[in-house]
């Protein structure tokens, strides 16, 4: 009992820190464009809060508390630094920001502007998601590195480089003008989705850090939706992530074995998450601005009928993939479209659609292509070719549970 009270006090403290952290960081970095200096200014205050709040409770104004500590620490640091080196302009600016913020009743929320800076096209696409996770949520480089399967040192270096680029190149902290908002928002959403996909790639959730990343991404998705409630694609992305998250438990059986979507027990899907996703998607649809994330969320939605004993609406899914294919030209979409086509028509039609993709080199090492191919060949009764495709799929899979699943399928071929 005492333990769980302690636990919930810690959780409440962490949640309050997270909510305040991005806001304070965005506020401090907005004028200086110096994310690293703003992080330094907040680091000790955050550590102090995480030690103090679980014991004494979250203060009434967490932001004011953090600011007061940050300001005190910052002045100390600046004093110590003064003899060694002249405080740079950005340090002076940070001091001014801190002083200004201390006099405010509430801190303006610049998090959206910070997200647009983190997902700026002038930064490498691969660093945008890690940067956003660090700047908005305060995750450390080691946690992010573990999720993206790179060494902490390398991740730390790439993050530092991206922050220097923001400062040196003068990347603005601003929500873009209407004319370019769509395209720029897309890169923010892409980065959030990349974070989600990293968390999602460990479906069993054995690695706590990876599972958390999916939750962090959903948190970011909610934040964007609350700050830009009129953007259909932002709602679409959140709906997509919630649909996927709703199936987390159903993706493994009691023994921890992989269960493909077609064989999942819909009773295990999380009903409140699905309901929330459906409402979001409906709201997005009414905005009449269709996009990639809404289409993908709609595909997920078409499986939901199974909860009421129905069959997934494959002709709707096929139409959605047709639209996605026309929009993105992505080979990943083409593979999914072939599977839907096989469901609507027959396996031969799906195989023919996959054959048409063979010239695309990007698919040669794409596991789902081979798994889909193997499944369709097996359904069509072509055991020899299916066996070969399964072998390729197994060789490319990194998740042992999925590998075992594919091996079982392959063995079943031999009857």
């Amino acid at each position, binding site marked *: 009992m005492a333990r769980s009270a302690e636990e919930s006090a810690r959780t409440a403290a962490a949640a309050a820190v997270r909510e305040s952290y991005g806001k304070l960081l965005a506020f401090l970095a907005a004028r200086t464009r110096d994310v690293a200096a703003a992080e330094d200014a907040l680091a000790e205050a955050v550590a102090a809060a995480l030690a103090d709040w679980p014991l004494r409770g979250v203060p009434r104004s967490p932001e004011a508390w953090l600011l007061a500590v940050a300001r005190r620490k910052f002045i100390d640091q600046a004093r110590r630094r003064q003899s060694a080196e002249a405080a740079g302009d950005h340090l002076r600016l940070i001091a001014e920001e801190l002083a200004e913020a201390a006099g405010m009743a509430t801190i303006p929320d610049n998090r959206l502007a910070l997200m647009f800076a983190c997902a700026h096209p002038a930064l490498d696409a691969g660093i945008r998601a890690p940067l956003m996770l660090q700047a908005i949520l305060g995750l450390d480089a080691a946690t992010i590195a573990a999720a993206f399967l790179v060494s902490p040192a390398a991740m730390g270096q790439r993050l530092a480089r991206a922050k220097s680029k923001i400062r*040196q190149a*003068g*990347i*603005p902290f601003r929500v873009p003008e209407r004319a370019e908002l769509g395209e720029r928002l897309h890169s923010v959403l892409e980065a959030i989705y990349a974070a989600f996909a990293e968390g999602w790639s460990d479906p069993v959730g054995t690695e706590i850090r990876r599972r958390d990343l999916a939750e962090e991404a959903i948190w970011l998705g909610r934040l964007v939706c609350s700050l830009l409630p009129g953007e259909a694609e932002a709602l679409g992305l959140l709906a997509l992530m919630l649909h996927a998250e709703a199936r987390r438990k159903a993706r493994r059986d009691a023994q921890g074995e992989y269960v493909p979507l077609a064989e999942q027990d819909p009773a295990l899907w999380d009903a409140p998450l699905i309901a929330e996703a459906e409402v979001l998607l409906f709201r997005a649809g009414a905005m009449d601005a269709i996009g990639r994330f809404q289409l993908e969320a709609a595909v997920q939605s078409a499986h939901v009928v199974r909860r009421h004993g129905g069959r997934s609406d494959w002709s709707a899914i096929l139409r959605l993939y047709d639209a996605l294919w026309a929009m993105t030209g992505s080979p990943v979409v083409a593979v999914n479209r072939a599977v839907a086509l096989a469901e609507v028509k027959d396996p031969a039609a799906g195989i023919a659609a996959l054959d048409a993709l063979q010239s695309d080199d990007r698919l040669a090492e794409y596991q789902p292509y081979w798994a889909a191919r193997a499944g369709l060949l097996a359904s069509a009764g072509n055991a020899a070719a299916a066996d070969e495709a399964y072998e390729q799929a197994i060789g490319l899979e990194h998740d042992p549970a999925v590998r075992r699943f594919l091996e079982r399928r392959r063995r079943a071929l031999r009857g």
Partner: protein
Amino acid sequence: MKYMLLIYSNEAAFEAAGKAEVQEIVGAYQAYTQALTKAGVIVASDRLQRSASATTVRTADGKTKVLNGPYAETKEQLGGFYMIDVPDLDAALTWAARCPGASHGAVEVRPVWAM
């Protein structure tokens, strides 16, 4: 902030262009320079002689080496620049995209080291 817009383009293609095409390109640059001037953001600009006229100098161990030709032999060569003063990178990128060089070559946007 000050930014350099460095214009890289294919010199051979430009030389092979017909008179009308050259006139059109020159006209486009004049209009662009005019627009930058009207917006009050231009600091400096110049067109460079072709890269075949370049000479590259290095000094090592007290010895000076002089080489005929540009620093790097690439298909697209630095052909000119604009220096502009705008609030942030987005504004610089917007101007870079309007530069005629962006459509017949590439424009590298580099912030100037603030002293």
